[in-house]
């Protein structure tokens, strides 16, 4: 099971595929980072929105035969609406200051409801397994390995999104307000920043991102909910490891994680079973979280890391 022997010829293609996969993880991770900055809770509901995106894309292309790009745009719109509605729910005065565990559980509940809704509203057809990619079915040859256009464009969209978000956070007034809120929410309130408006906006934006991520997943993962949960958990791992700090860190973390995973799956490091791979990734997450916590330690004995 732990047969390590290197296969150099597989390094190149593993690298490419790994980077390309990172794209999907980082979009979700960035959405998680954004909502964490606003509310200091983990946005589990993003998984639900991603499922709606995936199932919706599948349904629109399979049932109505819409153009792929049009589907993406429509789904981004749907994601924005769902995110905005969720923001309205949780940024409300009475709910916003509930304990974080309660808010996380509300997020979990909404995630489940959205998933149920998606599977009910967009039923799986027996004759269509995977959806067509919105960017065509060509493949490009890089280093003697075929990489689909879909993967490349997804990666491109991701990088563009992350850069845009980083620019927005640092350049615009609303972005500055979001960073102020994430720095010190009480002081932000006293400074006259409108928490409600900014919160709803941030949730809407992250909803759009998760829906897009889900739609981009549909051509590769189909409607396999378990696979999607795995992707979501990878994104969560990435976000946790980065301490929910910044979009760029999320992208970097996603690359590292995805590369690790791809190298394991493509036997570039020898025959590694899925069990070892999963355990290795889990251990990596825990260790990094411990190291990050250690670096931020204030010396208080019972100050437990509650993110």
């Amino acid at each position: 099971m732990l047969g390590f022997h290197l296969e150099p010829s597989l390094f190149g293609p593993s690298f490419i595929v790994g980077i390309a996969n990172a794209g999907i993880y980082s979009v979700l991770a960035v959405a998680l980072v954004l909502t964490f900055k606003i509310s200091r809770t983990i946005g589990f509901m993003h998984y639900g929105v991603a499922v709606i995106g995936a199932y919706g894309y599948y349904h629109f292309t399979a049932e109505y035969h819409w153009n792929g790009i049009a589907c993406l745009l429509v789904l981004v719109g749907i994601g924005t609406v769902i995110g905005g509605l969720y923001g309205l729910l949780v940024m409300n005065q009475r709910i916003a200051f509930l304990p974080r565990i309660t808010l996380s559980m509300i997020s979990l509940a909404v995630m489940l409801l959205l998933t149920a809704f998606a599977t009910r509203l967009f039923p799986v057809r027996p004759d269509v397994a995977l959806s067509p990619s919105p960017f065509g079915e060509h493949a490009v040859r890089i280093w003697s390995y075929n990489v689909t256009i879909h993967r490349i464009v997804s990666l491109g969209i991701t990088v563009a999104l992350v850069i845009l978000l980083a620019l927005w956070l640092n350049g615009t007034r609303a972005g500055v307000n979001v960073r102020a809120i994430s720095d010190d929410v009480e002081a932000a309130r006293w400074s006259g920043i409108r928490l409600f408006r900014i919160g709803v906006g941030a949730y809407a934006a992250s909803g759009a991102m998760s829906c897009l991520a889900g739609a981009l997943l549909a051509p590769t993962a189909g409607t396999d909910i378990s696979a999607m949960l795995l992707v979501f958990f990878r994104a969560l791992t990435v976000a946790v490891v980065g301490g929910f700090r910044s979009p760029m860190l999320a992208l970097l973390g996603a690359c590292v994680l995805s590369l690790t995973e791809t190298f394991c799956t493509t036997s570039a490091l020898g025959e590694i079973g899925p069990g070892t791979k999963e355990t290795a990734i889990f251990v990596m997450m825990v260790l990094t979280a411990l190291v990050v916590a250690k670096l931020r330690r204030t010396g208080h004995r019972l100050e437990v890391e509650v993110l």
Partner: protein
Amino acid sequence: MSDRRRELEIPKLAVENLRAGYDGVPVLFDVNFDIWPAEIVVLCGGNGAGKSTMLKAIMGTVQVLGGEMRLDDQKINKWPPHRRTKAGISFSPEGRRVFATLSVKENLHAGASHVPTAELEERCQEVYEYFPVLGEREGQLAGTLSGGEQQMVAIGRALMPRPDLILVEEPSQGLAPVMVDRVYHALQRICLDRGVSVLIAEQFQQLRENDCDRVLVIDKGTVVPYESLSRS
């Protein structure tokens, strides 16, 4: 200010029979006082006396359990903090509470949420006039500044929306006396030049009787006369 003039004007901020506290438990009991335009008032008291709660109640982040607060004769009990900022009250909290990961300029911008972008630069320059050292360190991260400079950032942030009333919580805390002088001096200039009222909360031992117009003493949640300040 003469009593005759007081009869004609309405106070900038009128607090009447205010009861406020946390989770339904009052910390302030039937507080009554007025703040007039263009005056500096110090709210003096020990810890746990309620100074912090008082300022936060005026700012809108503490639950009001009874009584009334009026800004220019408008009842503001139920107004959210951003509305009060827009109406002319701003707050510099205890311990400065600057946004450590934002630069000085971004901190100032954060305090001016409802100010149109075109005016932002002008207002920043106004702040730099009172605190030149901030102008020199515009781009520096606020977390790396000294205590005195952070206090200036906090007050500057509170100045950005051009308020009529600034609430300053314990500006002397943790600062060297010469820094405290500078801060008070700036506040006095602001009061004189712009007719801004300043309500400063301070501890007894930091009280500067000649650097303000009036002293209000708060003790265990009630405002008591200043004469009793002398202790046996």
